[in-house]
């Protein structure tokens, strides 16, 4: 168990900068997630830590020890692959014991540790089974047991849940988190599923085109995104283009969607363009004649879209100046046609100028 330090790692494939000057410091015992769309470099970065992808520049350390110069089989990382990669020619027990045998652990101890690891992943008594007799979820557990039994410096998981069905996925991610806390192990986790990342992580690095956009806790990633990409990739949001009218310290006036808002967190000077992020659930559709709650700003527009999603309903509202807004609400609206939308300006996040 150790901290992982990635310093200015870079790798170019042909003309593509797969990993572009990435620096990340994962703390000891932390559950750290690399989140991003496919092709953002998250898997490449994970494979760099495992040793299956070489760095063009930069370095990687486990604690104080530099490891990117070591061959992969000497790095003592436990990796869980997307397709499990359970050896079909070995039993479940043989799979879990594989890494211990490579380390010449005495057979008595090997047996004990295999039994213990299988117990941890709730596969007690499965040691004699063959992989082809197991379900996808069980194979996943074997892969995890095999990775943790060697007591790796870090546990690397490459989209481990993407081949499971939705229900099992939720169950397994809870279990991975439980194991990680139980063992106090450092985890580097790769996923493209933002909900999964929010649910499971201590911290998240959101990546795009080989670069890190933001590193923060799940809550900050969602509530305090620093770039339009992070705001729109994690959850859904309304991104509105605005112009700074005036600024005093942190507080400024921004013209947006035919109105002017007084917002905190504004940077730049008068005339600068900014992007505002407004989550759909922060917007409220007012019933006809209903007064806006205190501190709230009201905008008027036309309701042009209603999608009933079960627990919530999604509305599309077109504002007078042509801006389209998405709203999330609990109840189907009583109104149609001309409506009013209210929101608390404090829930508006001011992002930098449009990319």
């Amino acid at each position, binding site marked *: 168990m150790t901290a992982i330090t990635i310093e200015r790692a870079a790798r170019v494939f042909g003309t593509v900068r797969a990993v572009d000057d990435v620096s990340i410091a994962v703390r000891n015992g932390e559950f750290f997630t690399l989140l991003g769309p496919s092709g953002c470099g998250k898997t490449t970065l994970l494979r760099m830590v*495992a*040793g*299956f992808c070489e760095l063009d520049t930069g370095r990687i350390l486990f604690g104080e020890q530099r490891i990117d*110069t070591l*061959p*992969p*089989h*000497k*790095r*003592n*990382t*436990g*990796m869980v*692959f*997307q*397709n499990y*990669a359970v*050896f*079909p*020619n070995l039993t479940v027990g043989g799979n879990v014991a*594989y*890494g211990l045998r*490579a*380390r010449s652990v005495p057979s008595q101890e090997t047996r004990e540790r295999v039994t213990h690891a299988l117990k941890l992943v709730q596969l007690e008594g499965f040691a004699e089974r063959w992989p*082809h007799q197991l379900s996808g979820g069980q194979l996943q557990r074997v*892969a995890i047991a*095999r990775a943790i039994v*060697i007591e790796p410096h870090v546990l690397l998981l490459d989209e481990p849940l993407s081949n499971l069905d939705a229900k099992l996925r939720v169950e397994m991610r809870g279990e991975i988190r439980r194991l990680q806390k139980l063992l106090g192990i450092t985890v580097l986790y790769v996923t493209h599923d933002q909900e999964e990342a929010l649910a499971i992580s201590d911290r998240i690095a959101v990546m795009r085109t080989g670069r890190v956009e933001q590193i923060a806790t799940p809550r900050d990633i969602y509530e305090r995104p620093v770039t339009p990409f992070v705001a729109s990739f994690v959850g859904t949001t309304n991104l509105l283009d605005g112009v700074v009218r005036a600024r005093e310290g942190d507080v400024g006036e921004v013209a947006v969607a035919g109105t002017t808002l007084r917002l905190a967190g504004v940077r730049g000077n008068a005339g600068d363009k900014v992007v505002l992020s407004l989550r759909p659930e922060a917007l409220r559709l007012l019933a006809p004649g209903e007064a806006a709650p205190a501190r709230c700003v009201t905008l008027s527009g036309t309701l042009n879209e209603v999608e009933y999603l079960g627990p919530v309903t999604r509305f599309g509202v077109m504002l007078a100046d042509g801006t389209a807004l998405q709203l999330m609400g609990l109840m189907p609206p009583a109104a149609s046609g001309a409506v009013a939308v209210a929101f608390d300006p404090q829930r508006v996040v001011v992002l930098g100028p449009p990319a």
Partner: protein
Amino acid sequence: MRAFLGRNAFPMTVFAIASAFLGLFFLWPLLKVFGASILDASGNHFTLANYITILSNRFFLNGLTNSLGIAASAAICTALVGVPFAFCLARLPIGGKAVLLALAALPLVLPSFVSAYALVLMFGRSGIVTDMLQSIGIPFESIYGAKGIVVVYTLTLYPYIVLPVTAAFKSIDVSVEEAAQNLGASRARMLRTVTLPLVLPSILAGALLVFIEALENFGVPFVLAEDRPILSVEAYKLFVGETTDNPASASVLGMLLIVCTVIALLVQRGLLARRNFATGARRSAPLIGVSPALRWLGSVYCWLVVAAALVPFVAVVVISFMPFSGPVLHTGFSVGNFTQLFERSYRPLTNTLMLATLAACGATLIGVPTGYVITRHRSRLSALIDIVATSPFAVAGTVLGIGMVMAFSSGFLILTGTWLIMVLAYMVRKLPFSVRSAGAILHQIDPSLEEASINLGVPPALTFARITVPLMLGGIVGGFVLTFVTVASELSSTIVLYSGPWTTMTVAMFQALEGTSAGVAAAAATVLIICTILPVALVYRLLRRHELSML
């Protein structure tokens, strides 16, 4: 640099060995052939006279057109027979498919000239069937010549069409056909406009293999061509008969054969270039429900084809147990042919078994690691090695044999007349097969299995031994056995390279054919058939069991 070498030590070693082997025993002999074709009789001066002499000679020009015409006809006929067969097998609800497929693949491992010889025994001038037909007054035309050769090729090479095309028919995604029908195409129209075009690349690929095999085959035309010139046979005859220091004429014929193959390859590539359909079937198209009559028709057709292809082999086995006096066959049972075959020595049989075993070991030892590295470590170097390692397939056995004699009769490495030169030639000829089959198996093994092993602390070379080889084992054993049996029935390079003590079964049969001991030839053919069927039958079971234990 040290880190690079350390990390790439395994692939680099494999490439070094493969390059050295192919360079010395494949490229160097071919270079010798090319050199001889452009040098004068003394072997010292450049000249194009050899080409002019050969190409202005009616006899050899006929040989060229005969060879090309026969190879092209064989490709077309196998396609005409094989595509409907594959369609029935892949898409019609007929019974006994596993047996049909196994029987259809069988001619691939059986020596084709045995089939040719069986045809002579049955339909030749004094053949059993010919005599019978003539005795009841039906005149029967001779089966000698191009017609007979094409028939034999069709019956022995059609698996080259059936196997890939069956797979292609099965790999068409159901949704593509459903889309065609949904858009209003009738079933016949769908087959014509969607299904058939999608399997066309496989048909072309198979037809090319047939063309190359037919072009380079030595035994079949030797048995059936009589005095009509065929390039691969004439190259051999010229080489054996040539008295000057420089075997120029044989070399020119060899170069012509190679050029023909290369042109065929280029034509096929051109035809395929604009037809890269990777449908990646998630669910293969279902069997087509047809009327019982059509189903019956399909069944009958498949069994007839399989029977027609295998009857000659059965006939040879039966005939080999009948008494002969000279070339004349009598009814009855006798093992006289076998006693006659083995009365001088068992050496041909033991030679065949030994040489085939050694060649299969050698081809596997070089081919499997090469195939592994080509598949797993993609680079420009591996692409180049891939091309060189698979090109021996396109070089006629006689030509390679001639080249090896020229390269290793003098100089630093003298091998002519030894068993080693035969084994080396076999290894070169079968290397494409080992490399390709290793690659094919590897494509089914997820690379993350190897990465998982390395990640758990096992170094790459050891991972190859502990994870990759066990997973490949079924395929490796299968490849080994197929190499063994195809070497056992190899004639074209053997005939050039063998020397007295290293006579093989194929040569023994060849010699018996040249003489008048038809019975001995039949006995030799039977022994060859047993040598090839038995190992295949053994691994067929082993492979199935292996498959079952794997999944």
